[in-house]
């Protein structure tokens, strides 16, 4: 197991270099004149241009120059220096402010997914082909069919504006209450998937041979379902939830955008829109690490949940 984790960590290093390189290349290859982009609409004097060219090593051109700048950036990254965004703010500070908000939102979404999705999935799985099962089937199909870009404004309009149950937007320092509706909207997709996955897993496990054995032992049904079936059924569900938590942690561009939540996705979207190369590359680099780490945790968790799985 230890060797597996070490090997995975080494693979992560490679994946990290690869993804940052690609994002770095994409972000800066598309730009015409980075100095003009930095200055925006204002004119740039020759002295300023010379200074910035010097500062950002723009005098080195071609592939060699690109790699020179990339390695330079990477060096800073490895020292924990994410650099400055084009607005002059430290990217580290931006992330330090944005991440807690995104984490709160992710936790709410995850809680909704587990409480509602997994619970309803277990019930639907036990009562397969019943009314509840059919109802959840239609509902989840509906949720899975509506993209967030439609669902989020609809929820905002109806539950925030028309019948103001929730605050329609979150604002700069969002409270948990303000994040509840966005959290539900964000979690609805993973909720639907988790529900379907749990339902299928439970109903399959209910027909497994070991359930027949448990019944022949004379165990009460509550124990057969609650211990034997559930423990097996939750293996794929927990795996899915782990990957999903990694996704949610990396921010939700649409949901954060619609509800005006200053999280990671919100800042990333702003960076893309304003062609703020350093900001985008900085955020994505950190996201890559978060995502890789959460995947590693899921893999380790998988082996803990299922004793048949051994990593060598």
């Amino acid at each position: 197991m230890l060797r597996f984790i070490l090997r995975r960590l080494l693979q992560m290093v490679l994946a990290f270099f690869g993804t940052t390189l690609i994002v770095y290349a994409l972000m800066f290859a598309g730009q015409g004149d980075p100095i003009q982009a930095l200055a925006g609409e204002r004119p740039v004097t020759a002295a300023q241009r010379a200074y910035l060219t010097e500062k950002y090593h723009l005098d080195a051109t071609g592939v060699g120059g690109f790699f020179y700048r990339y390695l330079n950036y990477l060096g800073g990254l490895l020292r924990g220096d994410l650099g400055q965004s084009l607005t002059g703010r430290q990217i580290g500070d931006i992330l330090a402010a944005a991440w807690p908000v995104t984490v709160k939102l992710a936790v709410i979404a995850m809680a909704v997914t587990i409480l509602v999705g997994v619970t309803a999935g277990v019930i639907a799985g036990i009562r397969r082909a019943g009314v509840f099962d059919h109802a959840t089937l239609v509902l989840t199909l509906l949720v899975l069919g509506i993209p967030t870009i439609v669902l989020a404004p609809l929820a905002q309009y109806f539950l925030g504006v028309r019948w103001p149950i929730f605050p329609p937007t979150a604002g700069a320092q969002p409270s948990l209450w303000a994040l509840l509706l966005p959290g539900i909207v964000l979690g609805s997709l993973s909720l639907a998937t988790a529900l379907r996955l749990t339902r299928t897993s439970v109903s399959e496990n209910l027909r497994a041979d070991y359930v027949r054995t448990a019944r022949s032992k004379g165990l009460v049904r509550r124990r057969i379902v609650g211990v034997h079936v559930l423990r097996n059924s939750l293996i794929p569900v927990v795996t899915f939830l782990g990957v999903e938590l990694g996704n949610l942690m990396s921010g939700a561009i649409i949901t954060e955008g619609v509800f005006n939540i200053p999280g990671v996705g919100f800042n990333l979207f702003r960076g893309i829109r304003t062609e703020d190369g350093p900001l985008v590359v900085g955020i994505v680099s950190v996201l890559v690490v978060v995502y890789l780490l959460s995947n590693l945790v899921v893999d380790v968790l998988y082996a803990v949940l299922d004793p048949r799985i051994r990593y060598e």
Partner: protein
Amino acid sequence: MPTPVSPTPPDGHLLEVRDLHVEFRTGEGVARVINGVSYHLDAGETLAVLGESGSGKSVTAQAIMGILDTPPAHVRSGEIRYQGRDLLTLGEEERRRIRGAEIAMIFQDALSALNPVFPVGWQIGESLRQRAGLSRADARRRTVELMDLVRIPAAAKRLGDYPHQFSGGMRQRVMIAMALALDPKVLIADEPTTALDVTVQAQIMDLLADLRRDLGMALILITHDLGVVAGVADRIAVMYAGRIIEHADVRALYRAPAHPYTKGLLESIPRLDVRGQALSTIRGLPPNLMRIPPGCPFHPRCPYARQVCVDEVPHDLVLGDGRTSACHFAQEVHDDRAR
């Protein structure tokens, strides 16, 4: 309905199945899986139930245990008497109490029959903790005893191992230990050796025979393998298409089968003393249980078949030594030693 060989004890049989009918109602129609099965079991006895896949031997056992999936299974009529009480009239809670504690069952494929995510010690001890109310420590001690009883080496060290870490034979021993946890009076073994190597099969059969003797249990041994039965069983009930077509003492049945199907089965066993002949087979296939042939269900495959076999369902004929055969020509088959 006559019952062969052993006379009915004054206080009735330990376990008795009477004229059981079970059908499976599926989208494609109704499959008549059990069509009037009767057999009985007395304390300390071993009854072998023999038959091909789909003959209804496992379904009968699951009906006794009360673990049939209903739906699709539906017990249409019949009685299953255990110590004089008809189990089919009991409520689910009363039946549950009998499962495991009075009548226990082991299954064919121990790998899938054991829960993959719990250690074997936990699974054996579960009955002790949940049903017998033992403490964790007592259950653990008793679990080790049970694992010793079924001859799992280094039992105490293997408590925490998972089913997939055991060999096939050891897994089946775990199943047996689990079934014995609550000292049942009847053990139903549903093809306990089918998934195992031949040498391991013999070990498991020996173990079951020893345990039955030492613990004074009654054993129902379900199998499709005549070879497995010979050394262990007292009586054999041969099933075909959801009926018992022959029911006899083991020796009598091996000496001279009184049903063409049993005869065919016996002749299809390779023998060391008969060489240079092609192995005989039973032609055709077992019937589709949704369309069981009229008359005797075996007639399309039977070398003795005549018009009466198509027209009339044969009743159980009682032969001289108390055995029964559901064949119009039972005596003729019995006397026919030509082949």
